[in-house]
């Protein structure tokens, strides 16, 4: 039951928001997202004590077709639910810093998207999963398209078409899989779209081979891995900051989560067939994203390419099919979510103060903004994977996993750390240090309200870095379960 409340509370709040204006809208949006986080945190404690059975909810949705509204939580879902519910209040707070037109609608869309995201992470039925997958897309498209920068229309159209084309291919794959299943126990319909029914299928290697690409198309575009990434830098740059945070902090994880839950165990033979090409593509993405990031002059764009590079490593970790690689991905999903939201928030804070994101126009900001600099540096070093930060744990485990798969690939993938140190520290140097710019004297430091956003993020960075075990043990059984299914 709690799962249903978790799912629909943000939606209810979003609907209410349509009738509320001004300060009340902020209070309602933020309050709802905080309650939501409280519920998720409660679920996490309760979950550790009593296990997942209580969170299973199965309701016959379309009886004639055997499609169920089946949601549930396991360790993997739980962590992503926690990440989503943790980030959304912070993203809303960051949205309060700017005066958007129609603010109530803006917040409503953010909360609406939260329902979609949570739905993706808890669905245990293929068509329900697809349903939420697309539901998450509509609000983010409107957010980026209606509140974005100058080139928003063309850029978001490309984003929308890319992702929907990917998801339609996945839908086609799901329809095929669905028709291979038999009836579920006690159901009148001839087929079942339950996840467990998909896991139980025995498909030939050649079927799995093409099914792999149909399903993976959706996930590859969403993450995105090279060469399906061309929508990403433009969209991240043009979207308003809160939308960029949603896209990079949470939506990207939909792709990785989807791969772990809906691809690897469903078509294991296809995975073993395509493992190598996908890892190579991921590694190309790592290097490609990093090299392009070095050349960027726009802070937001640079972070976008950096994110592309890091997500490549996560994809490689997933496809290494090792316990350590998958666990690394889980931790890195959390760490990356926190890092990238923090980075985009700081980029937005600088832009709000100076009116520009163009790196050559900035410089020497640090004298007047010591707190901003420290926060910036913490987020940046966690992204670079400095020990003690969450980024280190994630990337270390990921690299260990990839290394187990193949030492050479591991070595090349390891370049990501060196590269990201190059472009991120260089950006820090040019923006915060260096010769004075016209803003050096006038810029103001972070306000208390902004610290309210950054402090929780920084706290989580260190928590992930110092006590990763508290998260790893939650996901461990789920990851082991996935690997058993892949190995069957």
């Amino acid at each position, binding site marked *: 039951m709690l799962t249903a409340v978790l799912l629909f509370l943000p939606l209810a709040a979003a609907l209410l928001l349509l009738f509320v204006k001004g300060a009340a809208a902020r209070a309602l949006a933020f309050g709802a997202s905080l309650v939501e986080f409280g519920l998720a945190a409660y679920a996490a404690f309760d979950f550790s004590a009593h296990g997942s059975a209580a969170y299973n909810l199965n309701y*016959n*949705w*379309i*009886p*004639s*077709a055997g499609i169920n509204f089946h949601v549930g939580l396991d360790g993997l879902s739980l962590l992503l639910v926690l990440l989503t519910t943790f980030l959304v209040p912070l993203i809303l707070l960051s949205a309060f810093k700017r005066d958007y037109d*129609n603010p109530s609608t803006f917040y409503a869309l953010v909360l609406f998207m939260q329902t979609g995201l949570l739905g993706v992470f808890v669905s245990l039925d293929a*068509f329900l999963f*697809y*349903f*939420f*997958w*697309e*539901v998450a897309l*509509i609000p983010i498209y*409107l957010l980026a*398209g*209606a509140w974005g920068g100058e080139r*928003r*229309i063309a850029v*978001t*159209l490309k984003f*929308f*078409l890319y992702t*929907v*084309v990917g998801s*339609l*291919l996945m*839908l*086609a794959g799901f*329809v*095929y899989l*669905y*028709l291979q299943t038999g009836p579920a126990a006690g159901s009148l319909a001839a087929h079942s779209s339950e996840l467990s029914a998909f896991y139980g299928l025995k498909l030939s290697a050649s079927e799995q081979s093409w099914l792999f690409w149909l399903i993976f198309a959706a996930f590859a575009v969403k993450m995105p891995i090279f060469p399906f990434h061309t929508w990403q830098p433009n969209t991240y740059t043009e979207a308003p900051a809160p939308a960029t945070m949603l896209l990079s902090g949470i939506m990207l994880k939909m792709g990785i989560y989807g791969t772990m839950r809906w691809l690897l165990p469903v078509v294991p033979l296809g995975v073993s067939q395509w493992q190598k090409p996908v890892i190579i593509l991921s590694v190309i993405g790592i290097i490609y994203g990093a090299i392009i990031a070095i050349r960027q002059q726009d802070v937001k764009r640079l972070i976008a390419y950096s994110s592309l590079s890091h997500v490549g490593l996560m994809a490689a970790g997933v496809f290494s099919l090792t316990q350590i690689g998958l666990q690394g991905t889980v931790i890195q999903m959390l760490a990356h979510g926190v890092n990238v939201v923090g980075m985009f928030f700081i980029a937005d804070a600088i832009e709000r103060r100076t009116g520009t994101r163009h790196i050559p126009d900035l410089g020497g900001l640090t004298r007047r903004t010591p707190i901003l600099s420290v926060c910036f540096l913490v987020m940046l070093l966690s992204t670079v994977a400095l020990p003690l930060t969450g980024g280190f744990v994630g990337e270390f485990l990921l690299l260990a996993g990839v290394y187990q798969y193949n030492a050479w690939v591991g070595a090349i993938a390891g370049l990501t750390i060196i590269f990201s140190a190059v472009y991120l520290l260089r950006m820090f140097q040019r923006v915060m240090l260096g010769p004075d710019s016209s803003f050096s004297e006038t810029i103001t430091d972070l306000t208390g309200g902004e610290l309210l956003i950054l402090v929780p993020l920084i706290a989580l960075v260190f928590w992930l870095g110092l006590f990763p075990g508290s998260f790893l043990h939650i996901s461990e059984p789920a990851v082991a379960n996935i690997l058993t299914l892949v190995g069957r």
Partner: protein
Amino acid sequence: MTSIILLSVFGILNLFLGFLRSNKVLLPGAMLLLLAVFGANYADWNVVHAPYFNNMLVVNNYTVAFTGIVLLTTILLLPFSRSYVTDGEPNLAEYYALLLFSLVGAIMMMGYDHLLMLFVGIEILSISMYVLAGSRKRDSRSNEAALKYFLMGAFATGILLFGIALLYGATGKFVLSELATAIASPANASLQPMLYIGILMMIIGIGFKVSAAPFHFWTPDVYEGTPTFFTAFMSTVVKTAGFAAFLKLLAVALPGAQGFWMPTIQAMCALTLLLGNVGAAVQTSPKRMLAYSSVSHAGYLLIGLVASKGALQGESASAIFFYSLAYSIATVAAFGVLKLVNEHRLQDGYAGLNGLGKTNPLLAFVMTVAMLSLAGIPLTGGFLGKLFLLIAAVGQGYIGLVVFAVIMSMVGLYYYLRPIIAMYMQPVPADATPVPVDGIQTATLVVLALLTIVLGIVPGFMSGLL
């Protein structure tokens, strides 16, 4: 049967209401009459009736379900004729009467059990539509639409009738079930070519009515010239009735000739999907886009015909029903918003919708829901309609066709997003004022949007009906 009688009587009653010379009573009057017919139709659900008039007409759940769609569509469409009332349109009573009569034709098309009944139904429906297409007498576009529709339509019905005659010549039968037996065991094998030409001609005739390619060429011009209110009727009621008739013909009368019509319908389906979607993508005005989009939806419904493999019940018949319902509701919503906006803003093309999200949030929201439903995005009935159709088709092994349909619906996304982009992402024109919408229209728009979303979220009560 009661609904046919009621509609005929009410149509005549409506003509008499016209003598009152007061448009104010007409709109609520017509809506109440239709609601009464809807109730009468609902009372026929799950009731077994003997065939009427020596097997001319049958009323079973199939007929009742599709009749429900066309009645509901018309009821939800009527409030958008409000401007006729306020402008003092002198012929409003005749328009409503014609709409009611054309519904009689539509119901006959869905309930026929005898080929001549099909012909009579199609003619009743079509002749009303020819008149309504030209109802804006002083407008040359409307005249052009009516003339084109009439000429082409007359040819098409002629061909249909010729097809019926050839079918009768080859088998000596008119009643669907007897036709099926005669085709399965032909008395005279040398008449086989005559039979096939007859079937082909019937397919052409009905294909024209539902605007399936390559007989769709009249659609964009006629839809554009016809007053928007009647375009909406044309693209929903005529199409639903046409497909119900089509499915019945193929499933009940012609299962024995499947080897002949199956490849024909498949080719038509692929061509319709291609021309409809590509055609819609290059249009510059939303009304023409919706015209081509209605062609493309004929293509998706044809997939249902292919997958039905000659069954009036089960997965694909239910899918066609669900799809027609979702399509009709979304199309009425889209045309309704378009009509309201076009009456108020003079600019044509997508730019006419610019900034609607700011000036009329409700209209923009309803239009968005309608577009998402037509595009087949989850949360809307259109998505589940497509999903059911595709599942039915893949289940019968038509994977190639389904893959093609999926690719074409990717093209569809592009043009269905264009109104959304115009409404929410383009700036408000400097001289734009909110579009006036009265209470009953607001209520209808809300109902249309809610129905679309309800169909998309809790489809259980409408899926698997047949």
